[in-house]
């Protein structure tokens, strides 16, 4: 799909696109990966319609809402996903790639600060990067699953709008749900 008849290059080589972040850094990304960001894909397709000559690596797509550090992680994650234009692997190769991806994902999460997850999710949402959203949303859910209510409020920057007696009543009623919670 990303290599149409207009592009004579074989599917394994890369057509590149340039993405510009909020802090004015430029990222050259393979088209196959960039197309996973549906916002970029939409932008690219709009550009293509308007001016055929100005496509490909000469177009710089601005991403004013995404910081370079965040984009770097998202691109790195995007590269590890199965590519839509890749030659079909046999079962063994597929299994190896799966294991590699799992290992990469674990490593990625280990090095991430929880606060960075929020930035990544925000950016993935803006870019409409479905696989990225799925992965980082799940990572965040796993992270907060056993946390206390205070931690969650602080983490998401949410103000507690309950009266103290309302909250106290609730905590008493559902005391069992507050057991076994991680220390803050």
């Amino acid at each position: 799909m990303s290599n149409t008849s207009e592009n004579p290059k074989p599917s394994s080589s890369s057509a590149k696109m340039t993405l510009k972040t909020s802090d004015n850094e430029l990222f050259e990304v393979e088209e196959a990966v960039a197309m996973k960001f549906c916002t970029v894909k939409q932008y690219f397709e709009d550009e293509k319609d308007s001016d055929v000559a100005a496509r490909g690596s000469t177009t710089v797509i601005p991403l004013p809402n995404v910081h370079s550090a965040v984009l770097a992680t998202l691109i790195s994650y995007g590269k590890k996903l199965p590519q839509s234009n890749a030659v079909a692997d046999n079962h063994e190769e597929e299994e190896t790639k799966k294991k590699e991806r799992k290992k990469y994902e674990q490593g990625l999460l280990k090095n991430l600060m929880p606060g960075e997850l929020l930035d990544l999710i925000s950016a993935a949402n803006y870019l409409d990067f479905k696989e990225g959203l799925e992965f980082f949303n799940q990572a965040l859910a796993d992270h907060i699953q056993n946390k206390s209510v205070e931690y969650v409020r602080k983490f998401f920057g949410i103000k507690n709008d309950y009266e103290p007696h309302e909250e106290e009543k609730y905590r008493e009623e559902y005391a069992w749900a507050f057991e076994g919670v991680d220390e803050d």
Partner: protein
Amino acid sequence: MSHLPVEIITKILFRLPVKSLLRFLCVSKSWYDLTKHPAFIKLHLHRSIGTNRDHTLIFGKTYKACRSYSAVPRYFVSVHFPSKNHFDKGLKLHQPLYCGRRSIRILGYCHGLVCIYHKTQEITIWNPLIAIWNPLIRKYKILLRERILKPSDLKNVQPLGEFEVKVYSLRLDSWRKIEDQWPKKECKISSTSASLNGALHWLVAEDISYDMHRWMGLVCLLAFDLAIEKFQVFKTLVQQKIDLETGLEVLKGQLCFIELTNEYNDVWLMKESREASSWTRIYKIGPCLRSFSYCKPLMFSENEKKILLEMCHLKHTKLVWYEIEKNREESVKIQNLPNSLWKFGTATCVGSLLLLDGHNVIDPAEQKKKKTNKRKR
């Protein structure tokens, strides 16, 4: 950090298990509103069904009390299994209908809800008490508290009573008699049902006769589609009259029919439609399993080579993994689950927030503790 939009919060929250969600209800009023919204509950339930999250087996003592254990336990036991190869230790779970020494029976289960029932009995009048219960969030609602004439079931040798079919709506909190009444002729119906894809299923037997000290009949499948509120009867693979000890369960998202004879449990899966032609035999357990009678299949193992069976015998029940091809069984040991001491029934639950507006299940022991603590202050 700026606030994340509500669509993103939703996409994070719906991945959480019910215990976390219950706790986070008090994070803020907007989180409370979001979680309690029916659309969110539905979304969350679908994810529970599709993943392994919050999958739990509920064990409850059945009505045949074991003689060596005269006191009926007030609690059930819940066993969470994060994956099919691993069972967490059993946790005592207080059930809402404890009344004296009568035991509670599990009638059916669906979408994380368990229907339980308790009856006191005079000669011809029943005082049944039926409740639906969400064990994972510890909420319940009483559905029925009525004196009704005794209907019969497949195992009960009683004349046929009167049937009236009603549907209970959770949303409206009321019963409603439906138009398409059933049965149209004399028959027996199993007392438990299997719920699948928005329809309830029972096994019914028509053309009943009493032969050689056993009730025999032609077993059919009765399906009630909840959306259109219509009954339909389907033939089973059983061509002739059989001993009416049969079971109907849900396994791997399909209806599972278990034919019980003196020596065998013959088990079939209904693949696509309910037509008899789509049935496939999955296994047949023979007499080598030492005279256990009904073996209720609970679930397949990860690689689908084994089935978790609840094996019911006269005096006790036990859990085993049965390896289909090798015809071998392996006892399952779960911490805190009494081993073969008592007869139990099971329900399979997924994480669900249904009944969030129900009553709290109160554990009397916990209540006592709280009251003592308050007095001490």
